[in-house]
C-alpha cells in the first residue's frame, strides 16, 4: 500500500535494507520471539477520505465531557477559569508560536522579553524575589523544590502536609527516590495541617516543610505558623499556591515562604483535559543559584540599550553536566506567555475580581448544596474556591447521574484517600452563574432523594 503521508517508498526501503545488509523488514524482527508477535495484520479499518475522517474525529470528541458543553464544578488542580480572547490571538502570532524554550535565546529578544515579564509578574504575585521561566506543571515544580531544599540545606528529609495535592506527592516521591530523600507525611484529620504533628516531624534532619494553601481540600492553611515551625528547625518552607488566587489571598512570600511553587493553569491556560500546564517556581534571592530551570535577566548592551539574556546558565545541564542544579533545561514558553497575556489583560483589579467572584460563588454554592438533607461540609475550615462535601450516596454514582444532565459536580475523593470515600471535592470559579449553581443544587437534591 502506498504511504501517502510517510515519505518511505518501497524503493527507499530496499535501499535502506541493502545498506544494513538485511533481505527484508522481516529480517530485522527475527530477534523478537514468535509468540510476542502478531501473526496477522492489525485489524484496522480501511483508510477514510479527509472529510469522513474529520466527521469521525468530531463524533469521537463529542463523547468527551468538556467544560464548554457541561457545567464544570471539577477542580482538584485544574480549574475552569475564563480564558480571555486576546490570549489565543496573540499566542498564534508566528513570532511567539512555539511550545518550547528558546535555544538561540539572545536572537529572540521578543521571546525573552515576554519570559522576563512573566517572571516579574510571578515574583510580584508570590511575594518572592525571583521566579524562573516556568517548569512543566505544578507537580514537577514541587518535586524540583524538594530537590532544591535538599541541596540547599544538605538534609535528607522532606515533610509534606497531607493537604498537598496527592498527585503532586506521588511525583515528589518519584523524584526523591533516586537521591534517597525520605518523605514524611503530616496528617490533616481536620482538613488542614496538624501543627502539633508537624512540630514533631520537623527536626534538624528536615530540608523542607511543604504546605499547600488553599490546600487540596480547598481549605486555607496557617502558612505563617508553618513558616515559624520550619525556620525554627533550620528547614525551608515550601508553599504550593495557585497564583490565580493571589489577587485576593496574601502572597506566600509575605508569610515566610522560602520557595513558592504551583500550578499556573488558571492564568489563562485552557484545561485541555489535563495539560499542557504551567509550573510556577519562585524563591528568595539568596537561593537564586540553586533555582532549577531557565532564568531570563535584563541587561544593557554595549550601546546602553536595554536587552534580555538567559542568565546564571552555569547552573544548567548544558554547562554543568551531572552537577547541574536540576535536569530541567526547558520551560513551557507558550503557557507562560498565556499567563503573561492573561495577567496583562486582567490587571490588578481584574485578577482581584476573579478571586473575589470565585470565593463568593463557592461560598454560595456550599450554602445551597449543604441545605440538601444528608449533605454536609466534610471539614469545618475556612475555604476559598473549593470545598469537600460529604454525600449520603456514593459520589461516583452521583457524578455519573449528574453528568447525564450535563453537570460535572466535582471530583470523588475515594481514589485519593480511602477515608474520604463518601466525599466529593467541589470547585467553583468566577465562570459559574447563580443559575448554574441553583441547577446543580436542584439536580443533586433529586438524585439523592
Amino acid at each position, binding site marked *: 500500500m502506498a504511504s501517502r503521508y510517510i515519505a518511505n517508498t518501497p524503493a527507499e526501503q530496499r535501499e535502506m535494507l541493502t545498506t544494513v545488509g538485511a533481505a527484508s523488514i522481516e529480517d530485522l524482527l527475527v530477534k523478537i520471539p514468535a509468540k510476542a508477535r502478531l501473526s496477522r495484520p492489525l485489524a484496522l479499518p480501511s483508510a477514510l477520505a479527509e472529510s469522513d475522517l474529520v466527521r469521525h474525529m468530531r463524533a469521537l470528541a463529542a463523547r468527551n465531557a468538556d467544560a464548554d458543553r457541561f457545567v464544570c464544578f471539577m477542580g482538584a488542580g485544574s480549574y475552569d477559569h475564563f480564558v480571555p480572547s486576546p490570549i489565543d490571538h496573540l499566542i498564534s502570532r508566528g513570532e511567539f508560536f512555539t511550545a518550547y524554550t528558546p535555544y538561540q535565546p539572545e536572537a529572540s529578544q521578543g521571546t525573552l522579553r515576554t519570559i522576563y515579564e512573566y517572571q516579574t509578574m510571578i515574583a510580584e504575585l508570590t511575594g518572592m524575589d525571583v521566579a524562573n521561566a516556568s517548569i512543566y506543571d505544578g507537580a514537577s515544580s514541587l518535586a524540583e523544590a524538594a530537590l532544591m531544599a535538599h541541596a540547599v540545606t*544538605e538534609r535528607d528529609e522532606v515533610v509534606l502536609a497531607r493537604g498537598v495535592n496527592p498527585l503532586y506527592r506521588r511525583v515528589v516521591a518519584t523524584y526523591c527516590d533516586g537521591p534517597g530523600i525520605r518523605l514524611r507525611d503530616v496528617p490533616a484529620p481536620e482538613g488542614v495541617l496538624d501543627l502539633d504533628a508537624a512540630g514533631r516531624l520537623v527536626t534538624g534532619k528536615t530540608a523542607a516543610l511543604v504546605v499547600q494553601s488553599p490546600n487540596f481540600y480547598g481549605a486555607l492553611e496557617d502558612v505563617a505558623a508553618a513558616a515559624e515551625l520550619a525556620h525554627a528547625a533550620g528547614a525551608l518552607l515550601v508553599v504550593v499556591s495557585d497564583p490565580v488566587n493571589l489577587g485576593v489571598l496574601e502572597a506566600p512570600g509575605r508569610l515566610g515562604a522560602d520557595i513558592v511553587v504551583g500550578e499556573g493553569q488558571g492564568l489563562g491556560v485552557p484545561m485541555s483535559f489535563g495539560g499542557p500546564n504551567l509550573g510556577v517556581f519562585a524563591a528568595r534571592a539568596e537561593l537564586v*543559584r540553586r533555582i532549577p530551570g531557565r532564568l531570563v535577566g535584563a541587561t544593557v548592551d554595549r550601546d546602553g540599550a536595554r536587552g534580555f539574556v538567559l542568565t546564571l546558565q*552555569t547552573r544548567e545541564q548544558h*554547562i*554543568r553536566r551531572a*552537577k547541574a542544579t536540576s535536569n530541567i533545561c526547558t520551560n513551557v514558553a507558550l503557557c507562560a506567555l498565556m499567563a503573561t497575556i492573561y495577567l496583562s489583560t486582567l490587571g490588578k483589579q481584574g485578577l482581584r475580581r476573579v478571586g473575589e467572584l470565585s470565593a463568593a460563588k463557592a461560598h454560595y454554592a456550599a450554602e445551597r448544596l449543604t441545605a440538601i438533607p444528608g449533605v454536609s461540609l466534610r471539614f469545618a475550615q475556612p475555604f476559598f474556591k473549593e470545598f469537600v462535601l460529604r454525600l449520603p450516596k456514593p459520589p461516583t454514582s452521583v457524578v455519573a447521574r449528574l453528568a447525564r444532565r450535563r453537570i460535572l459536580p466535582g471530583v470523588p475523593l475515594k481514589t485519593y484517600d480511602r477515608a474520604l470515600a463518601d466525599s466529593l471535592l467541589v470547585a467553583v470559579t468566577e465562570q459559574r452563574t447563580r443559575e448554574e449553581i441553583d441547577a446543580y443544587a436542584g439536580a443533586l437534591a433529586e438524585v439523592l432523594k
Partner: protein
Amino acid sequence: MASVPAELKYTKEHEWAKREGDRIRIGITAYAQEQLGDVVFVELPKVGAKVTAHQAFGVVESVKAVSDLFAPVSGEVVETNAELPQKPETVNKDPYGKGWMIVVKPSSAGEWDHLLSAEQYEKFVAEAAH
C-alpha cells in the same frame, strides 16, 4: 608567569595549601584566577563538612567558566572565607591572601607530602602552557 610563593604546596588542579600549625589553609593559585578571569561566584562547603583529597569541595565560577575546587588534603572544614560570597573578586585581587577559601583540619598526615612544591608546580604550569 603568575607568582608561586615558595612556602606553599600545590595541586595539579591549581589549588594552594598552607600549613598553619595543625591546620591547612586552602585557596586557588594566581595562575588559576588568571585563567578563569573575573570570578563572579564562589560556593564553599559549610564548617564541619568533610572533604576528601582530589575530590571537589566547592565551585568557582567566572565570566568564562565554572570549575570545581579540589581538596589538596582530606579532613574537616573548620573555617570558610565568609567574605567570598559577597566579594568573589577578592579571589582575583589577592589569591594567596584575602582570597583564601577554606581551612581544613587534616585527617591524615601523609597527604601533605604528596603535594607539589612551588618548584614542581611552576614546572607543571610551564609544561601545561606548551
